């Protein structure tokens, strides 16, 4: 019983990262029908930005760690959002203006991801960075179950972000505009809606969440390397597809589902089977429902 609860908690934490990253994939796809393959690397950039912000605040200003954390969260999210918007501006928007086919934009996204990874490698070197401890670690133990305060924060953050995005997309005007663009990219400008601004806002939201995920990831697994975003980004993308890409609930559920399956497989079988089993299960889900759990056959998405 203890093992079950402990693994549920482990799965919740691990799934939170997938969910947070998958939300970014889903938002951009929902609005632009573009799979932003650079998103995993924006997550990596977010982790590095968090590292530099935190070390700078700790080093120069001599703040207390909790104050640094309070400042690092918004700063990281803003700066990472800046990176996402820059990417949209220099890579995706020119292609969109020229009316390039979606396929070329997806390939461009893949390329941007590689540029971010290798740019980081060239700029900062291969040596790993150790993320400073911003949080006094508290371990709560109930019987054989242990949970740290960080774990609770991560899970809590994922749920909050999901609720917030759900609210923005379904209840606000800009959310309505996002859904409108998804529905018909050509008619929406005629209604007087500034399509570019809405798209930039989408990237701000998606990349900001990736920045938050990067910060939380760096706090949970405090060793940073340039390629850390690649694999987790791919997996989060798959999670978003299984959840039904374009749907926010889908990304959220898909992320946690993948987290649970991965932890569950390792708990029951040798770890070599993890990805084999995890992705076989996801494949079966797609067989049954090719659009993903919450996906709708292509009409409006998001």
């Amino acid at each position, binding site marked *: 019983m203890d093992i079950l609860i402990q693994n549920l908690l*482990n799965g919740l934490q691990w799934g939170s990262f997938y969910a947070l990253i998958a939300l970014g994939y889903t938002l951009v796809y929902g609005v632009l029908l573009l799979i932003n393959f650079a998103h995993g690397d924006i997550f990596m950039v977010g982790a590095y930005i968090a590292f530099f912000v935190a070390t700078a605040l700790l080093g120069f200003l001599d703040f207390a760690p909790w104050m640094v954390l309070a400042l690092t969260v918004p700063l990281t999210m803003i700066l990472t959002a800046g990176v996402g918007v820059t990417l949209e501006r220099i890579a995706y928007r020119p292609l969109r203006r020229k009316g390039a086919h979606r396929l070329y934009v997806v390939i461009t996204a893949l390329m941007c991801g590689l540029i971010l990874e290798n740019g980081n490698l060239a700029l900062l*070197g291969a040596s790993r960075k150790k993320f400073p401890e911003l949080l006094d670690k508290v371990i709560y133990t109930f019987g*054989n179950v*242990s949970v740290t305060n960080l774990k609770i924060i991560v899970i809590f953050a994922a749920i909050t972000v999901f609720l917030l995005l759900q609210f923005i997309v379904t209840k606000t005007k800009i959310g309505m505009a996002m859904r409108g663009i998804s529905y018909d990219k050509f008619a929406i400008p005629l209604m007087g809606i500034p399509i570019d601004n809405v798209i930039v806002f989408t990237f701000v939201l998606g990349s900001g969440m990736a920045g938050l995920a990067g910060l939380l990831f760096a706090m949970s697994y405090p*060793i940073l390397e340039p390629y850390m975003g690649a694999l987790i980004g791919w997996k989060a993308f798959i999670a978003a597809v299984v959840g039904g890409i374009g749907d926010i609930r889908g990304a959220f559920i898909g992320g946690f589902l993948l987290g649970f399956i*991965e932890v569950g497989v*390792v708990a029951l079988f040798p770890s*070599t089977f*993890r990805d084999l089993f995890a992705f076989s299960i996801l494949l079966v889900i797609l067989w049954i429902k090719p659009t993903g759990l919450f996906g709708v056959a292509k009409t409006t998405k998001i």
Partner: protein
Amino acid sequence: MKKMIIRSLLALMVLGLALIIVSGCSKEEEKIKIGFNIPLTGDIPKVGEASKNAAEMLLADINEQGGLEVGGKKIPLEFFYEDNESKAESAVNVALKLIEQDGVVAIIGPNSSKQAVPAGGTCNDNRTPMVSPWSTNPDTTKNRPWVFRAAFLDPFQGPVAVNFATKQFKAKTSAVLFDISNDYSKGLAEIFKEVFEKKNGKKSIVAFESHGTKDQDFSAQLTKIINSNPDFIFVPDNYNQVALIVKQARDLGYKGPFMGSDAWGSAELMKLCGDDCKGQFFSTHYAAAGAKGATKEFIDRYEAKYGETPDDVAALTWDATRLVLQAIKDAGSYSSDLKTERKSIRDALSSIKEFAGITGSMKFDSQGDPIKCAVVVRIDENGNFVFAESVCP
């Protein structure tokens, strides 16, 4: 406009080609070329950096005196550092490049067994002597007359870890967490399991868990391990993963000790792991704290030059490179023909019976593996690696 761009591009290409041809043809003086197949990027960049630092120091030493004296003539050295990205397939490519393109007479490295085992095959097939400084997996040199090493073997290191842990922790049971895609980690974990079970009976290894190289979350494996309640956890893993594993185990409420292996011994371990690793033990090649003689001299010079204590990889690279230089000297004369020179270096290497390295004196067996002592090191409260015990075969 377009035409102009194309033309200027063409002109640039021609210029580039001309440059390559000119630089390729220029007659240079004779040099002894030695290649380094080391991980400068990838999972363990610090290992490559330490290797390169030690090699640079040695290179400067010898070239300052005009070169290596072979048969009364001084020939300067030239070192080629190639990055194998900590990947097995890149290590093979690097070995081929060093052998075919750069024309080196011998190769130092790769360091980790994951790369040294496949690259050893390549060097052996291409008849180029290779000395791995750090690889401890038996397969690296097994049935490969052209491949040597400067480190002890895992079949020796495994029992050292078992004996020490049983004595130190009074352990009856143990758990193992290892990297299944790394030859080194997997090999050592299996040897450890076999020896520990022989000593403490079947089922004394209460959990035998693995993970992949790129993994960052080990909570599921650790939950299983902690629930089986071992006396200590054996982690034969690279330093970057050790930092994550130890921290996550503590987060999950594990309070017992860890025992590590020589892959822990990087100068970067304490930077990444911090307080969580203090007080743990690992087996390794040498202990920097309290060293004497030539070892101390090496450590002091390295510290002065690079501002950090040399880890075992640095010391072993120093020894491995000096072994090759010794072999070149022993051969008596330097031949400019690559094939003959490689052959004579190999023959000289295999006839070295005893060598006084800074990681201890070594005798070589028929496989080209040194027989030397291992040390067990404790990480003290300040993060220094302090000598705890020495075990000789």
